[in-house]
């Protein structure tokens, strides 16, 4: 009963902002495309047709064709699956690590806290892209490695967020009463504190998907990500860049796909933040913008 009215309140706040709604629509569309890519795409993404190479956009090929005659529209539709799965798995990993470390750090405090937070500080010293690149280079470039590596190098923000939340929550009465009835530390952490610390995590996760999609595209662009012929948006741009002068569509459309989907997740994340935490309307809320990949 209460849960329902609370989520209605969130929804009312959320839909007030037209940009948030735009974000929701873009993200829903993105899911729809990724899910129905096999049905929606007019051609097979890998189908080579040497009779129709480097065709400009037309009614037959909405976004034109590449140097092997593959239909760019179909490849971009299929590419959404790569971006979406990398985004979600990578963020799943980083959220898990961040949650656990943040919980431990905030809950136990003192030396544990110092240790974990120093670790976070040190990890943040590395230019993220350098770290990711180094690890990827030492392993074999594949979609799985990319997911894991992006996840392993992007949990620090979540850890800080959760820690701050836990530190304020653990002084509350409900935690005290849980302890009074003899709950174990584990139970208090995961059953009592964690559910109450989640709302900023949802925001961070949504924004994190956007970041992971950007990072994956950059890695695939450099040839260290998803390997051809799998249609990843970044890799499509790499394949098209040598023909930029005669086939602009090979560069323009995949880039737009990245831009729009990242924009969607960012707008959705910002909208969620405004809806879940109205106090955060000003001040530090824009900080995530400052540390791009």
């Amino acid at each position, binding site marked *: 009963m209460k849960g329902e009215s609370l989520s209605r309140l969130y929804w009312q706040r959320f839909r007030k902002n037209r940009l948030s709604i735009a974000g929701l629509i873009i993200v829903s569309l993105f899911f729809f495309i990724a899910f129905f890519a096999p049905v929606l795409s007019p051609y097979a993404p890998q189908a080579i047709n040497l009779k129709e190479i480097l065709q400009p956009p037309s009614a037959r090929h909405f976004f034109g064709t590449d140097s092997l005659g593959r239909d760019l529209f179909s490849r971009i539709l299929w590419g959404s699956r790569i971006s979406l799965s990398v985004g979600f798995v990578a963020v799943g990993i980083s959220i898990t690590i961040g949650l656990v470390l943040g919980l431990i750090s905030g809950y136990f405090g003192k030396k544990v806290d110092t240790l974990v937070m120093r670790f976070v500080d040190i990890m943040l010293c590395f230019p993220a892209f*350098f770290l990711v690149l180094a690890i990827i280079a030492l392993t074999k470039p594949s979609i799985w490695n990319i997911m894991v590596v992006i996840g392993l190098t992007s949990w620090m923000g979540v850890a800080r967020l959760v820690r701050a939340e836990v530190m304020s929550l653990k002084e509350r009465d409900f935690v005290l009463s849980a302890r009074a009835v003899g709950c174990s530390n584990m139970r208090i952490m995961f059953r009592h504190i964690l559910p109450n610390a989640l709302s900023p995590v949802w925001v961070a996760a949504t924004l994190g998907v956007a970041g992971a999609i950007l990072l994956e595209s950059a890695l695939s662009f450099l040839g260290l990500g998803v390997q051809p012929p799998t249609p990843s948006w970044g890799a499509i741009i790499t394949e098209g860049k040598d023909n930029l002068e005669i086939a602009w569509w090979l560069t323009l459309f995949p880039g737009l796909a990245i831009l729009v989907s990242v924009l969607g997740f960012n707008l959705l994340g910002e909208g969620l933040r405004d809806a879940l935490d109205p106090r955060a309307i000003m001040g530090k809320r*824009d900080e995530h913008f400052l540390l791009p990949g």
Partner: protein
Amino acid sequence: MKNYIFRRLLSMIPMLLGISIITFAVIHLSPGKPTDLATSLNPKVSLEARQRLEKLYGLDKPLYIQYFDWLKRMLRLDFGRSFTDGRKVIDKIAERLPVTITLNILSLLIIAGVAIPLGVIAAVKQHTFLDRFTTIIVFVGFATPSFWLALLLMYLFGVKLGWLPISGLYSWQFSSLSLGGKILDLAKHVVLPVFVASFGGLAGFSRYTRSNMLEVIGRDYVRTARAKGLPERVVIYRHALKNAILPVVTILGLSLPGLIGGSVIMESIFAIPGMGRLFYASVMSRDYTVVMGILTIGAFLTLVGNLVADILYAWVDPRIKYS
């Protein structure tokens, strides 16, 4: 103040140690050995030769000994020799580093110089068309993949319009140009990379300045200044801006790792001989010693950047007493 700087410098020591441990762990715990490229990928190399090679690089010793050996050498700034051409890693980095640092400082200056006024204007004119317009630009700017933007601009200004060169730092006739010509030539080469590198940051910083400014404008001392009858210009630029800008200084320092990391893409696309391109090349050829060296130096630069930002912050804000 001196005391504060000294303490901050001391606190860098454990951080540096941590950086070295993570660098070492990243390289040595991942599958694949540094000598793989020269050995297992090359069927002609015998097992014996491989072991000789591993011994040469100390790869046969236990990990912790390798770490301490590496650390000891690093303290003397000896990062070893490159696997690919045998040159000293420190030399290879030293000749590339100035390029990357100069480009990043230029980008930072542009970010600060454009984003701060933009953010102030957006805040002062809150809820106007201008404010909404910058908000949308910020979101779009942040979602734009930098490598893609670089390609499009290269195509537009380099190929289509032919106004700007698209690769390298100098033209081939650079040495025969006059001083003014040289400066112009360099400027033409760096304008696109620097613009693209600062693009993402521009969006973020104008947004951040805006929200700081909005917060400050709502404060009592700004109302007091207005109530005294000061002109709006003085209220905004003397009373509000000074306070709003402080956190921005720190954040500029924090954006350094992002910029340095981004130099990999920028320098690869524009064929600029900087550290980012060296890093990419080393990663591709699995040149471990160079990769380790650059990772360490990149993290060190970030650490120094944060330190400088903190000191600047303490220096410009008299309210903060570090004792």
